[in-house]
């Protein structure tokens, strides 16, 4: 520990000069980026410089160099545990997300292939319970709570030409006044038409199924296209829900009162009240701030899920609207294009709350 008077001070001066120069170099690297170095090597260089500074201070200013080994032993073990904690946390938070895209998808594909061969997939009990709760794993027809057959009491004729008054005919007991004039074009083909369809679902008992247009012969090819019910991937919807949403919104979309709002019923209601596009925005940009759902106040944070694909978002939206209760009348399933159209909206999660307020949902 004892050093020559001038020798020790000389060493300290040398060390602090080196430390100063390194700090300046670090600053310069960041302030005047060197393109030839590349991002990865810049990171490596910064980390290396930081480690050198760290070691210089520990060895010379804290005198670990030449001091009793017991000190360095204690300190190193603390450092090792700290590093292990650090690495474990980084792994926990960063690896699962990376796996979502690559390995997890491959595994799911492999599992499906396996199911094809042997007809049965081993599902752990806790996972099975989760899936069973929302019933999404079973075909719709087999479910005890399957929605009743559609009531096709309303016939809507698709528009013939741009200038035509859209004609519709009410054959059931539905309230005519509540049915707005709107086209029943195939939503996959015409986004605007699909968006325009949303208000009519408010009418009780009013069924505006696109395939109802079949009754009219006059529309030709377009009508034939419109007659096809839009198919969506129920398996993907359930899968995305169980992988991402179930933790907060629970297996049957019931939520946790006061903490996480319910989706069952509520999502369909929001959709019916003009929130079709708002729901896409919630998924893409999140939602933050005070809301009220079924008389209960929530002030939390829905994260953004923009890292999911357009297909995944569309299908999970269809899942929460269709599978957690009766399928809303006239519901036109979301398509990937519905989601893609909003990716560029660039909203903050607080701005999405404003959209919600404008819809009068609070």
């Amino acid at each position, binding site marked *: 520990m*004892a050093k020559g*008077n001038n020798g*020790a*001070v000389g060493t*300290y*001066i040398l*060390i*602090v000069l080196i*430390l*100063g120069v390194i*700090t*300046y170099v*670090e*600053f310069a*690297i*960041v*302030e005047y*980026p060197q393109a030839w170095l590349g*991002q990865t090597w*810049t*990171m490596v260089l*910064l*980390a290396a*410089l*930081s480690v050198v*500074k*760290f070691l210089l*201070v*520990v060895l*010379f*200013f*804290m005198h670990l160099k030449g001091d*009793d080994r*017991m*000190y360095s032993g*204690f*300190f190193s*073990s*603390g*450092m090792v*545990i*700290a*590093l292990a*904690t*650090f690495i*474990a*946390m*980084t792994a*926990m*938070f*960063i690896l699962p997300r990376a796996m979502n895209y690559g390995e997890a998808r491959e595994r799911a594909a492999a599992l499906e292939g396996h199911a094809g061969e042997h007809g049965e997939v081993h599902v752990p009990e806790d996972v099975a319970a989760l899936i069973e709760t929302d019933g999404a794993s079973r075909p719709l027809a087999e479910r005890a709570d399957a929605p009743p057959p559609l009531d096709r009491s309303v016939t809507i004729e698709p528009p013939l030409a741009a200038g035509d008054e859209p004609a519709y005919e009410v054959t059931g007991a539905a309230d005519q006044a509540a049915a707005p004039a709107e086209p029943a074009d195939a939503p996959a083909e015409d986004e605007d038409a699909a968006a325009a369809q949303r208000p009519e679902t408010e009418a009780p008992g009013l069924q505006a199924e696109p395939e109802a247009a079949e009754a009219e012969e006059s529309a030709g090819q377009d009508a034939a296209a419109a007659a096809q019910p839009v198919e969506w991937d129920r398996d993907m919807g359930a899968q995305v829900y169980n992988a991402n949403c179930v933790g907060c919104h629970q297996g049957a979309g019931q939520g946790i009162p006061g903490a996480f709002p319910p989706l069952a019923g509520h999502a369909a209601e929001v959709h019916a009240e003009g929130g079709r596009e708002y729901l896409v925005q919630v998924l893409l940009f*999140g939602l*933050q701030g005070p809301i009220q759902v079924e008389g209960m106040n929530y002030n939390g*944070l829905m*994260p*953004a899920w923009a890292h999911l694909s357009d297909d995944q978002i569309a299908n999970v939206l269809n899942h929460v609207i269709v599978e957690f209760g009766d399928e809303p009348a006239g519901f036109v399933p979301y398509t990937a294009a519905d989601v893609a159209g909003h990716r560029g909206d660039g909203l*903050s*999660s*607080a701005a999405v709350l404003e959209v919600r307020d404008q819809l009068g949902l609070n």
Partner: protein
Amino acid sequence: MMTRLGWRSTRLPDVKLLMWVFLASDCMMFGALIGTYLAYHNRSLVPPFPVDVFDIPLTTVSSFVLLVSSFLMVLALHALRIDDIPKFRLWTFGVALFGSIFLGFQVYEFVHFVNAGLSIHHNLFGTTFFVLTGTHGIHVAVGVLWLLGFLIQSYVRPTSSKDAVYLEIAGLYWHFVDIVWIVIFTVVYLVEFV
């Protein structure tokens, strides 16, 4: 000296051993805090984000200030070991002064961030950043008070090279605070702009 420092079977001054053990545990705490900061990095939903508020030139200057204080710390210890009390007082005061300047920078930075809309409960970045740098700032403040106490004590009762081990452990603590900042400066501030 043997009896006063209470040497044990380790043949080491136990106050110093104790300080190293404390620093080892403090490593774990800062490791967890830095890990938390990184785990939530890029997960804030609303701005301001780190690139919006960080000021690298300013932080570089405050890093220099802390490095210089570490240098003054070894000078103060060296002066006390050779019983050069005036210089010991000068350098110790210097350490406390530079530590206070560093804290001044941090207070300035925090106020600037809050004015930019970043509070501890605003977003994940705010929460993890203020908890990490705030914990470090408290460490610096404790070090400043400790060293000022040492300085005042040297006027109250005679201080000599026999007390060097106590200044040494204060110094160990001070240098540790410096190396934590070396890591934070790189991991939190610099890497953000690469």
